[in-house]
């Protein structure tokens, strides 16, 4: 294995791989049968290198990590192949020896920091436990070394944190604790399984940088498992792409993103929202991979991607395709032609239909003259805060939404972005009338909904509908799909039985589902199908506005593309307006005509999507943009931008004046007074905007790093 483009080229030639998987098979026995989660997975990790393992849910990336660690879920077992760690096969070693290796030579960081720590054990005890168990270190020394490792993972006041419990820390801090725990015995290999997926982008960036720094410091190898191509592109030396339990392609990171060979890798990259924007400048239609990944409990022959592949031939379905030899390995019979000297950037998206989107642009903000469908004026929402613990007395107010105003025109998509806790979902819930604002107005078609009651209020609800992130949780599991779709019609007393049935049939056609789904229950559907049903339900009453709260955040990239395309198609056909709420800037950038950026209950910037993303005026917006990992592998740039540090302040008694000033690199004394949202089309609430408004259109050079 000769490394050419990695940042930390391991010594070529004689170096032994630290970890080598040979033809690893993993089965998981479930009640309904055995799932062959991994089938012949072979991988190598060299000392000191970062291997990215990327794939969608069910691809086997996590099962690979768990197989190495010997932490497979109940019913899971490695049924074939070898796991060679430092030259020894873990499968043939005695259990006690493997456990010691797992504790001392390897470390693992899991996805969800909120549930990955023992809630009733002090931080110090948890972090220091491997020392006590494996190195037989005394209590005092373990504590000392624990404080030291907590300091090295960037924990403020580690000597106090050791005595805290996990619930007293934020998500980002808990992930630091988890990393400290994995590193306390100075392992040779760190396996990070979606270490930042549950975190906000600004925190994600801090954690990824921390892992990078520690890798150099400890001289260890890292396996970074993620679904996010952007995370991989910025951090890994080499990448292995997994699909349906197999490695389908592996190459040096730069090489892979420059010139993917496997048709699945290619399709995956084209399905990213940012690829569609970058290529044309316009919002091209996303390439969406049709269908679903195969069921791994059935015997499979041929290329597993064949049923969803654009380049499939009969041969693909019958021949078992193995990885090619060499530096850049792929398992594809009809690979993308290699492009040795292609310019840095995304693969040529030859498949992306450049068809301009007639809905987005013309119906958008270009005609502000049209009366807005939704008009939000000085919206405020406060919640009474209760102290935690036994004492549940009122401890002040949480300012969830503070003086937010914006308009959404007919047929327009208004994107609302921000990190968790910024109030974007609350705005959505207020807009559809699920909650009452503390102050301010919400007007639909010029009518203040606060003044409505009874029948008028019910009629108003027809105009605006909500679409949820987790459609499964938002559906009654005991109702069939026909009842779920009919319910809004019944509540609003629309038509008779026959009319409703016809309406439901139309809805299914619109969202691309067959009539057969009507007799099924929510648990029988995949995530993408559920989002379609959720969309159909919100369309049932022919609303003019749909508020989508993270509607694609739980979906894999290929499925996400299907749903995003569907939402845009329906917008064009039905003239819908969307309020599209998401933490994912690239998705909002793709979907929205205009974007509002929220921070701690405040709208800090509003403007045309292109300007906000490519010429941000608020320092927070810029920091958010910088923190988003891009699939353009450019680690140097990714590390340079002025990042924001620290944590989101509490919305309980937020900072006075500009709420971002406590973390802002540009903050001055004047920031203690509140900046108004100023500007014409591209407004910003900042005393020191990064750019004047006019520069936005003229200088697209200030695009994402």
């Amino acid at each position, binding site marked *: 294995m000769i490394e050419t483009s990695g940042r930390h080229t391991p010594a070529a030639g004689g170096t032994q791989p630290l970890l080598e998987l040979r033809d690893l098979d993993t089965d998981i026995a479930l009640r309904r049968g055995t799932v062959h989660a991994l089938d012949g997975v072979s991988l190598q990790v060299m000392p000191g290198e970062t291997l990215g393992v990327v794939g969608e849910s069910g691809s086997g990336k996590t099962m690979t990590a768990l197989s190495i660690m010997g932490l497979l879920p109940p019913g899971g077992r490695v049924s074939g192949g070898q796991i060679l760690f430092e030259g020894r096969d873990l499968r043939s070693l005695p259990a006690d020896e493997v456990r*010691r290796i797992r504790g001392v030579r390897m470390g693992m960081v899991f996805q969800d920091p909120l549930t990955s720590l023992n809630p*009733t054990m002090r931080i110090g005890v948890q972090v220091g*436990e*491997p020392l006590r*168990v494996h190195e037989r270190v005394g209590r005092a020394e373990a504590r000392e070394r624990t404080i030291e490792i907590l300091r090295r993972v960037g924990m403020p006041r580690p000597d106090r944190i050791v005595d805290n*419990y996990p*619930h007293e820390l934020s998500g980002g801090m808990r992930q630091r604790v988890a990393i400290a*725990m994995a590193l306390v015995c100075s392992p040779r290999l760190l396996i990070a399984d979606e270490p930042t997926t549950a975190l906000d982008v600004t925190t994600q960036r801090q954690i990824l940088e921390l892992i990078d720094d520690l890798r150099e410091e400890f001289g260890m190898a890292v396996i970074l498992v993620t679904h996010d191509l952007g995370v991989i592109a910025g951090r890994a030396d080499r990448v292995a792409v997994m699909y349906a339990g197999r490695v389908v392609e592996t190459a040096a990171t730069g090489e892979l993103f420059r010139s993917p060979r496997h048709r699945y890798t290619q399709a995956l990259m084209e399905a990213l929202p940012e690829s569609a924007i970058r290529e044309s400048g316009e919002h091209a239609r996303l390439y969406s991979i049709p269908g679903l990944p195969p069921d791994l409990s059935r015997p499979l022959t041929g290329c597993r991607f064949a049923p969803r592949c654009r380049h499939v031939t009969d041969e693909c379905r019958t021949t078992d395709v193995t990885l090619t030899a060499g530096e850049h390995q792929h398992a594809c019979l009809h690979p993308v032609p290699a492009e040795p000297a292609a310019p840095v950037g995304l693969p040529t998206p030859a498949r992306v239909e450049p068809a301009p989107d007639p809905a987005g642009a013309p119906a958008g903000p270009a005609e502000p003259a049209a009366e807005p469908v939704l008009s939000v004026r000085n919206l405020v929402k406060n919640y009474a805060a209760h102290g*935690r613990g036994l*004492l549940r007395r009122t401890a002040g107010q949480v300012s969830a939404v503070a003086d937010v105003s914006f308009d959404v025109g007919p047929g327009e998509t208004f994107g609302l972005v921000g990190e968790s806790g910024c109030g974007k979902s609350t705005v959505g819930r207020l807009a559809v009338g699920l909650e009452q604002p503390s102050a301010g107005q919400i007007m639909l078609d010029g009518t203040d909904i606060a003044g409505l009651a009874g029948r008028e209020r019910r009629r108003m609800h027809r105009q605006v509908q909500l679409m949820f992130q987790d459609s499964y949780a938002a559906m009654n599991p005991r109702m069939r799909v026909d009842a779920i779709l009919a319910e809004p019609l019944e509540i609003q007393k629309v038509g008779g039985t026959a009319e409703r049935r016809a309406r439901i049939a139309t809805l299914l056609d619109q969202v691309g589902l067959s009539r057969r789904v009507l007799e099924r229950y929510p648990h029988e559907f995949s995530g993408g199908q559920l989002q379609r049903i959720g969309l159909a339900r919100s369309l049932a009453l022919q609303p003019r506005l749909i508020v989508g709260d993270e509607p694609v955040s739980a979906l894999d990239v290929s499925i996400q593309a299907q749903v995003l395309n569907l939402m845009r198609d329906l917008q064009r056909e039905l003239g819908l307006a969307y309020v599209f709420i998401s933490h994912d800037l690239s998705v909002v950038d793709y979907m929205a005509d205009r974007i509002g950026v929220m921070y701690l209950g405040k709208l800090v910037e509003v403007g045309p999507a292109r300007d906000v993303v490519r010429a941000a005026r608020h320092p927070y917006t810029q920091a958010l943009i910088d923190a988003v990992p891009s699939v353009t592998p450019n680690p140097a740039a990714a590390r340079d931008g002025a990042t924001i540090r620290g944590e989101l302040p509490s919305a309980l008694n937020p900072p006075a004046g500009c709420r971002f000033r406590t973390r802002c690199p540009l903050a001055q004394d004047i920031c203690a007074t509140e900046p108004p949202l100023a500007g014409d089309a591209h407004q910003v609430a900042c005393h020191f905007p990064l750019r004047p408004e006019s520069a936005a259109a003229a200088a697209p050079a200030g695009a994402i790093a």
Partner: protein
Amino acid sequence: MVRYLITRLGQALVVVVLVTVIAFLILHLLPGGAARATLGKEATLEQLAAFNHDMGYDRPWIQQYGMYVQRLLRGDLGYSYQLNQSVVEAISQRLPKTMVLSLLSTVLAIVLAIPLGVIQAVRRNRWPDYAITSLSLLAYATPIFFMGLMMIILFSQVWPILPPEAPQGFTVAEVLADPAGLVLPTITLAIVTIAVYSRYVRSAMVDNLNENYVRTARSKGLSERRVVLRHTLRNGLFPVIALLGMYLPALFSGALVVESLFNFPGMGQLFWQAALKRDFPILLGVTVIISIATVVGALVADLLYAAVDPRVRLQRSAS
């Protein structure tokens, strides 16, 4: 913490007051009133009137309730004409003995139920789990009088190693002086409790063993024993703590069936005989005592919870 205690005690007080109101109302809603209930069918109208006047039952209800509460506060729960002793006296004779039996069986139940539940969780869906589950369900489904009878038949008839009757001593010391007599009632009482508690422990442990933090613990290379004992057990015992709080009233009320079966002179038997003889002062006195025990038990459970679960504990001032 003090503030919380005061709040909770205030809530408890409200419940207790409501209980006394209800108890008072029941006493006065009896057909023929307390006089008829106390003096029996043969009493003449004059006797009834005299009784009512003596007891103040001819005064307005509000006044009567005031008197009732006054007596209650003085620790006077009334007088049992059937036993010819005050209710307080009757209870204080039997309560300590009942507590001995209840405590013994509870301790036995906990000591056995926790390991059984843990074993079931660790070996879930394998034969130890199935075996214990089957036995638990059997114990749970068996009527307790049947269980007690089987015990007596087996261990004092077929294989006569233990006496069929509980100790008849008058004081706690006398009861404890006859440990052999306590064995069968204690075990009979414990068996059902073991069945219930081990189910709770099992399900809480199974839930916890599937938690992510357990996977994290395993990733540290800990032995399975350490994972279970150091990481999971504490969290798996929370439901038992809630159950223990609810167990406090049982400690006071005793076990009606078992006490009758083994002829143990405890609270259960007192209550049972009072019910048969329509001895209302006893019934109400016991009810009030048990109600107070229930309220206090809930409070104790909450406090125990706070003691073991840091998430419930009061936030320290610093963070």
